């Protein structure tokens, strides 16, 4: 496709900033303490950026507003900085639905967006059309990124997989279309059920979709199983993005990256790290393995 967005080979993730660690609660708590101020997050983003890892794949967490504001204030420094927002930050919606119910939640999070303001009067009608509702919520989530580069916008796995399971498949093409029209962005879908999602996206007419899923050699959270994942990546037409490649540290870095980089159709690899050493080591390993494969391919 001519207008396809080129994605960087290496994307920087955000789990380390928000206390998400799939292996150790203690480690997660230490990370939460270390990154309690936005300045600590920005410091690490700067290290990544200066190391050539310029795309930040981040949850639309409340704290991103402060990070975005910092980038906006210094457009010269951050001229090549790219965000891939991943929405929604589900906790805030889940907590709000439990607290005040679905309708109040919609009002709460769409308030302030242009469309929301215009259509507040027609809230009753609009909320019964979930495609219009999706647009209101996307606008609410995108407010923080105004003026910044967001060429790919992802749906978080908890929402992708909820829609997948419930059979609300019509939301996927509507989202795909809306982010292209409104934000000039390509849609991406994060999932823990990659082969099953791909079946649905194809049926819904989304060609060559960007799909981000766990891809690691120990079969951690890869529903459908390792073999089916490998076959799907090899044979089907989509743009795979690999996350959880180290399975939260269960696989040594070199072994983990050999496995992922060895599957040549994987376009991008997301990883999170908190130190200069780890960021540069991961970058160098990916480049080294890629160079070896490229060399082998041309020989």
């Amino acid at each position, binding site marked *: 496709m001519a207008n396809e967005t080129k994605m960087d080979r290496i994307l920087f993730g955000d789990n380390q900033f928000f206390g998400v660690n799939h292996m150790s609660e203690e480690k997660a*708590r230490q990370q939460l303490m270390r990154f309690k101020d936005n300045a600590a997050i920005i410091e690490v983003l700067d290290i990544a950026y200066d190391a050539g890892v310029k795309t930040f794949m981040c949850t639309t967490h409340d704290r991103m507003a402060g990070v975005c504001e910092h980038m906006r204030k210094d457009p010269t420094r951050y001229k090549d900085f790219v965000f891939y927002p991943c929405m929604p930050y589900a906790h805030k919606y889940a907590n709000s639905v439990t607290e005040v119910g679905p309708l109040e939640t919609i009002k709460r999070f769409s308030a302030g967006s242009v469309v929301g303001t215009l259509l507040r009067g027609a809230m009753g009608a609009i909320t*019964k059309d979930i495609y219009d509702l999706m647009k209101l919520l996307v606008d609410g989530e995108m407010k923080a990124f105004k003026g910044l580069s967001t060429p790919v916008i992802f749906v978080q796995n908890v929402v992708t997989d*909820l829609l997948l399971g419930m059979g609300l498949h019509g939301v996927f093409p509507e989202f795909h279309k809306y982010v292209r029209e409104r934000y000039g962005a390509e849609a991406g879908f994060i999932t823990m059920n990659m082969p099953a999602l791909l079946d649905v996206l194809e049926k819904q007419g989304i060609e060559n979709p960007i799909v981000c899923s766990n891809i690691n050699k120990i079969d951690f959270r890869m529903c459908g199983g390792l073999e089916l994942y490998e076959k799907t990546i090899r044979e089907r037409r989509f743009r795979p993005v690999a996350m959880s490649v180290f399975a939260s540290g269960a696989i040594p870095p070199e072994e983990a990256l050999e496995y992922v980089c060895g599957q040549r159709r994987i376009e991008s690899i997301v990883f999170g790290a908190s130190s200069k050493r780890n960021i540069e080591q991961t970058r160098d390993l990916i480049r080294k393995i890629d160079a070896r494969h490229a060399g082998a391919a041309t020989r």
Partner: protein
Amino acid sequence: MTVRVGIVGAGKMGISHYAIVNAHPNAQVSAVCDTSGYVLSVLEKYTGVATYGSFEKMIDQGKLDAILVATPTSTHFPCAKYALERGLHLFVEKPLTLSPAESRTLSDLARKQKRVNQVGFHNRFIGTFQEARRLARGGALGRVTNIHGSAFGQVVVKDQSSGWRSKKSEGGGCLHDYACHVVDLMNFIAGAPASVRGARMQSIFSKDVEDAVYAIFSYADGRTGVLETNWSDETYRKMSTTITLYGTNGKLIADRQELKLYLRPECAFETYVEGWNTRYITDLQKPVAYYLRGEEYSSQIDAFVRAIESGDLEHENSFASSAETDRVLEQIAQASRSGS
């Protein structure tokens, strides 16, 4: 065979179960019941599922094999009883009821009707806790002398009084909504205590319910248990549950992510060596066919569907085991009231 399931209550848990049931190759959601007309109209319009405003009508007309109940706890008993009397299999969110007597009535009825009866204590499907139980019961720790269960999280971190979870009469509060998980998990790993020796239930921010529960348990064989739960601790991103077991041969600490086992000199067990051993969930958790929020949520639904298919009533998380958990919860409340 496709198991036709009706969902009662389309809140956070009900919707999550909806997706998991529907994604199961041998089950489908055929009907949904809720009190919110808005939620029902959206579900009907976009999924085509049959919707009902009352569970009686759904059970009578829905041509269902099973129902899944995810409503406030105070409503579980009438709904579960109605469904069992009409021969449906049942999955009920935790805790089963607010009264051990009612829970036992449901358990007896399910046995009489020969229907699968499962409760949503999903921790029993987490690999680290399953391994903790296996090790404790297999003798890795020698004689277990003490069990400590704790849970912390940020459910109520400011004054608030809306929603059923803040109302005692509907089953809100840290005891029935939070500590129940830990009590059930302690029962799963170490067996149920014989009595509750003392307890305190403490309000921190809530008006009508407690936000923290502390208790000491006595077991028939002389073991002691300690329960400590607080859902007003905002230093935890989400609910963090930990079980620690002390035994004559060592000590075991298990949470959602990892299992740490310390074995004393000359007490190596199977592949576990003397000193510290650590195993992670990445190694201990069995894979699932569809993942939404954690393998345990999918595994428990898979177990439910399999039990229906096989007719096996000796499955995990039966009403009988949950009635034991409800008995301990009631004893905690009594001990707290009496100031013992």
